[in-house]
């Protein structure tokens, strides 16, 4: 199989990756297209590397981050920056109305396709910038300082976005998976 064919076979995976982060089909298609072209042009630099998908995903990550940086500049983040909407979870003294329970054997769930589908639905339910911050941090593995820089927000705002994402995902997984 030629490199072109092998890369083409990766397109569905790359598109899924880009769509998860960009939440916009057109932007995801563009990022993948640029990635495939860049990969073909850089064929020589792939020579000798073992995993084509890892290499192509590495290129895609840069394209995705570029797209997020551009859209953050064009449409700066508004809202999603205070924790008032979590007040429903806590009483006026900041204590739980309903304390969360520990999840039974959560790591076992990671083996289950159904769980990953539930996680994806919970991710889609997050506000857009909140989801982007969280995915850059935890899925792409960027340092928090880089996440804040690409999104064009202060580190305090960044922590709020990440807190919001973690608390909302926690609640969503509890409701849609672990409490079942």
């Amino acid at each position, binding site marked *: 199989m030629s490199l072109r064919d092998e890369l083409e076979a990766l397109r569905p995976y790359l598109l899924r990756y880009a769509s998860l982060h960009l939440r916009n089909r057109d932007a995801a298609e563009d990022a993948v297209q640029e990635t495939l072209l860049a990969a073909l042009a850089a064929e020589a630099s792939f020579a000798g590397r073992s995993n084509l998908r890892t290499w192509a995903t590495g290129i895609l990550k840069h394209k995705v981050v570029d797209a997020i940086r551009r859209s953050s500049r064009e449409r700066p983040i508004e809202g999603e920056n205070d924790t008032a909407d979590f007040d429903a979870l806590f009483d006026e003294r900041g204590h739980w109305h309903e304390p969360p329970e520990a999840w039974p054997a959560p790591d076992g769930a990671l083996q289950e396709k159904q769980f990953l589908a539930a996680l994806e639905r919970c991710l889609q339910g997050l506000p857009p910038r909140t989801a982007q911050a969280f995915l850059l941090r*935890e899925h792409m593995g960027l340092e928090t300082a880089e996440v804040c820089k690409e999104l064009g927000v202060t580190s305090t705002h960044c922590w709020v976005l990440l807190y919001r994402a973690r608390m909302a995902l926690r609640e969503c997984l509890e409701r849609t998976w672990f409490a079942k």
Partner: protein
Amino acid sequence: MNLSCKEATQLLSQREDRKLTLGERVALRLHLVICKGCRAVSEQIPFLRRALARFLD
């Protein structure tokens, strides 16, 4: 410093993103000893990291 659960959960999130101060770490540890709900969250936040690290793989 006595943390509320809202403050404790904020620190549980932020400790994934920055180094907490000594005072914050001590206050958080004391809070977790007495608060079962926040102890659950203290396990769930790192779990989210593990789940996302392998998502799409």
